[in-house]
């Protein structure tokens, strides 16, 4: 799978975390856009629909789950991987119900994230709508 063609959007209010994550992905040939809140995420999706987005659940402003809902309403083909620092709580279960592809916990295992992204993008490519 050619990871360089992946269109990824990273959303987290923890700038240090998400920038470093983007940089590490970049080292592995995966380019990703980075935004730091829900509004910016919706705007970024409107500008260019990503194949997959990594979305933090707990953010100031629009919450991760609201972003998920709105993205899924407009672009159901976008695969969303939820991130949380609180484990598989009710938010996670809720997120999966709104159509999240996966639910990962901080601190991340990068290899696990890349694998999950691969699976998500494969799923996107498999959807007739895409």
């Amino acid at each position, binding site marked *: 799978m050619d990871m360089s063609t992946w269109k990824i959007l990273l959303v987290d209010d923890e700038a240090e975390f998400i920038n470093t994550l983007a940089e590490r992905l970049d080292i592995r040939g995966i380019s990703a856009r980075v935004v730091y809140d829900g509004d910016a995420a919706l705007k970024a999706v409107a500008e260019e629909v990503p194949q997959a987005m990594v979305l933090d659940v707990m953010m100031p402003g629009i919450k991760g789950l609201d972003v998920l809902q709105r993205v899924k309403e407009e672009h159901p083909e976008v695969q969303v991987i939820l991130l*949380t620092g609180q484990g598989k709580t009710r938010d996670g279960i809720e997120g999966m119900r709104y159509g999240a592809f996966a639910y990962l*916990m901080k*601190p991340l295992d990068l290899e696990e994230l890349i694998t999950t992204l691969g699976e998500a993008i494969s799923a996107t490519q498999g959807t007739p709508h895409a």
Partner: protein
Amino acid sequence: MKNILSSTLNTIKADMDTDISSPGRYRLLRRKIVSLMALVTLLPLLSLAGINYYEHQNTMTAEIQAPLRALVGKAKHSFELFLAERISAVSFIASAYSFNELSDDANLQRIFQVMRREFTGFVDLGLIDPTGRQITYSGPYDLVGRNYSEQAWFQQVQFKGTYVSDVFLGFRKFPHVVIAVRHTTESGQSWVLRATLDTMHFDRILAAMGLGPGSDAFLVNHHGVLQTESRRYGRVLDKLPFELPPTNFESNVQSVREPDGQNVFIATAFVADTDFALVAVKPKPTAFSTWYTVRIDLLFIFVSGVVIIFLAVYRVTSLLITRLQESDEQRLGAIHQMEHSQKLSSIGRLAAGVAHEINNPLAIINEKAGLMRDIMGLRPDFPEKEKFARQIEAILRSVDRCRGITHRMLGFAKRMDVKIEVLDLNAVLVETLGFLEREAEYRNVELVRELAPDLPNVPSDHGQIQQVFLNIMNNALAAVPDGGRIVLRTWDESENFVAISIQDNGCGMSDETAKNMFEPFFTTKKEKGTGLGMSITYGIVKRLGGEIKVMSKLNEGTTMTILLPKHSVEG
């Protein structure tokens, strides 16, 4: 009385407010309530018994004294009648015959014969002239010519006209009484007619009183000298061993203590025209024999009543105290459980917050360290690459360790819905054992299964039960040395519960550790544990409606027993 009751009630109230876990509280409370109830119930009984006793004794005394008084009165009249008849007879002869007629021996003999025939008791009869000389005499002795002018009785008859003497033995050595009557004619001539009476008739009157055995009746003069024989105090003319109680002509009963210490009732009355007092004696033990029998019956009833009341009071109080104790313990247990649940809940919320707050910076550290490793990997000429690689690995290992801790904390905070299904606990136990078999094998720990084949299936949560088993088995495995032994048992405990025990022969626990092992954050594993495992276990078992017990002895081992309900529990 009111003060005693209110102060006792106040102390009982104060005792009830004291710390319910304080030793001896219920013992003290039981003692005080029993005392108060016994006081309240026994006091009226005691008063009633006392009043009853006193009244009954008074009634009995009156019932004993009245007949004795009547008897003495009757016997006194008999004596008076007897003596009055004889005095009248002598007086009649003295006045009916002239001095000359009475001076004739033959006449006196004839008159005496008639007297003896008409009146019993006369022994002799004699005529004495005013100078005191016996003129004629009819009787068993030769007393003619004897002069009585110097004797006291002659002086008295001259003065009073009639005289009845005290009892004396006389020449014949048996008791007599003398009756003397003076007669004076219109011409001024006077003489004295003197008759002697045998006192045998006195004895007959006394015997006719019909006093019971132990009782006594006799005549006594003013000086306390016995005039008739007494069963208790001696023979005729003996001195009475005690002072005669105050006496008058009406019969009167008094209680007297004899010199030998015996208590007696004494009824006395003076006999008219004599120096005699009639005395009847009835010992109290004889008189009160019926009362004593009744008293024993009353005492028996009273003591039985007291014993029954006391036993009933003690029994009822014990029952109440036991119920109170049980209720207090249940309340304490409920409070403790609630506190425990609240503590768990607060800690859960805290753990979730802490985990979230830590996970974000931890994620940054993780990514930064990962980036450093990535950059270093991209540059083969990176100076001191291996040294840096070791530092980065150390950072990442620490991040992993922290992640493990925060994940466990989140696991504790998790409040998953309980999913109840019918479970074969033996199967769940064996399944859970599968996780640990490799470690046990490696450490040569023997895993013994003593599982009841017919253990009933129970409704419970598979995942949570497995977590409980795993937590306890993990602890057991950590406690045993290499080559140790862990025994798993299941059995049908009761109508409502099945039991599972996990026994190890490991290091065991001190009492202090066993007491605190279910408290959150209590751990003996230092850095290896969060101190939440057994607390979670406790919470799950409680939530599933079960019980968990621990029995442990330091250096001998620990047995954890879980009771799970056979039927679904609400909540």
